[in-house]
């Protein structure tokens, strides 16, 4: 029923006429990215991404809890049973925002980023999802001295407080799915996501990145195929996503090179 409701949504007609982007997986199979599932629907970033991506794609949002949304929504606890299989049925790409519910303790956060992510990816692999974009955090790299130019080649150094350990474990899980070829996965490590208007107020935070620029990076990660061997996405791609400010703690050179990412909001 959910599947029929989804396909029957009014968005279908608009999407059918849109130029659906094409992705190409590491295995070489190609197909248009029409339907995108976005997790953690209760979070503002998920809604921003849904609005942005809905211009060219059919969107389905999901969350552990019921969420009101103008986009089609399907509640799911991302468990290991059939409902998660149904959630990803017909989906071409997943944006795994991977934020635990507000107020979740560390056990719940780790559980969300490990077990539920595992369930989601396993179901996605079975359903033939072409690509997953996993949203991680640049906090994995803040332990390095600020004098260094830290890029994606540096080993993550998660802390034990805040989101960095769960996000790191989520990356760990995604990496194994990508490694053995179940799914191509693009991990975008985000700074502190803020609305662009916030960046012009007060003192600049070197970790800031505008949600509009995150939406751009996600859109590019979804649509970027491997047709260009000079900037192809491998089955496991990690990219830092920062603002373009000269004061940014981490630069996004690789994302610019690989995706064509051009942050527009730079404080």
């Amino acid at each position, binding site marked *: 029923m959910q599947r029929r409701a989804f396909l029957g949504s009014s968005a279908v007609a608009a999407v059918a006429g849109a130029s659906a982007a094409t992705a190409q997986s590491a295995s070489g199979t190609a197909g248009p990215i029409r339907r995108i599932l976005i997790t953690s629907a209760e979070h503002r970033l998920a809604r921003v991404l849904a609005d942005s991506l809905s211009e060219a794609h059919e969107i389905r949002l999901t969350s552990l809890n019921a969420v009101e949304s103008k986009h089609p929504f399907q509640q799911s606890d991302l468990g290991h049973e059939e409902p998660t299989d149904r959630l990803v049925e017909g989906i071409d790409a997943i944006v795994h925002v991977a934020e635990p519910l507000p107020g979740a303790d560390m056990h719940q956060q*780790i559980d969300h980023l490990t*077990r539920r992510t*595992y369930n989601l990816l*396993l179901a996605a692999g079975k359903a033939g999802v072409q690509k997953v974009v996993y949203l991680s955090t640049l906090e994995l790299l803040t332990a390095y001295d600020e004098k260094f130019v830290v890029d994606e080649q540096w080993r993550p*150094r998660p802390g*034990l407080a805040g989101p960095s350990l769960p996000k790191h474990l989520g990356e760990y899980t995604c990496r*194994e799915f990508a490694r*053995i070829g179940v799914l191509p996965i693009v991990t975008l490590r985000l700074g502190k996501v803020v609305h662009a208007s916030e960046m012009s107020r007060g003192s600049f935070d070197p970790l800031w990145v505008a949600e509009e620029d995150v939406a751009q990076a996600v859109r590019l990660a979804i649509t970027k195929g491997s047709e260009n061997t000079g900037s192809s996405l491998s089955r496991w791609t990690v990219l830092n996503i920062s603002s373009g400010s000269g004061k940014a703690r981490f630069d996004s050179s690789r994302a610019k090179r690989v995706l064509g990412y051009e942050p527009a909001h730079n404080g």
Partner: protein
Amino acid sequence: MKALILGANGYLGPHVVKALEAEHELLITDIKPPPTETSHKFRLVDATNLDQVMDAAEGMDTIINLSVVRPHRVLAFGVNTLGCYNTMLAAVKHKIRRVINTGPHFTVTGPPYEGFDFDIGPDVPPQSGINLYAHSKSLGQEICRVFTEHHDIWVQEYLFYNFRDPAKLTPGGGGVPFQISWDDAGEIFRLGLKIELDKLPSKCEVFCCLGDMPHGKFSNEKTKKILGFRPKDDLSAQWTKPV
């Protein structure tokens, strides 16, 4: 040394107890009582329950985590992943500097190694693959490693695969090229409690725990070199031609 053993009543636990009981004071814990009477203290502890792990760890010098769940996704992540988180939180709270964690060989040396390579040792980047048991244990081990970067805790990770009774070898029976006798497995824990922490190369060390296999597929050299392990049981008859 006062040693808390989590998951002590599984397959491996009784052999670890047997190896340690002469030299250490043991608190045996599990979600089920011991199958036979034990002379050691016993407490029901579920590794997924932080409060229970915290209470059991009070006053201990070391934690040995043998807890494991293989097939059920909720329980596997609960025990194999979050159980490690609880273990490390308890170690931090009670200032326990020595932790021994355990897992299957593919916690680290999963399909990308096993399917391709030889002389596979423990000091390789973990590649568990997505097997539920392997991956959930690998996440647990990663949690342990991250804790060692932030606290004065030394973790030894022991990797096992198959266990065998040397009295019951079957010439030509074969099997996976990563096996150890129960007694030799227990001995490694004794050595792991004996070694001075500053003799370990780092605060997080992984050991392949297998006997001297004839295949050359996996290597126990590090376990010999660092812990002084000398397997006493020869299991090679398992791979001789049947008479």
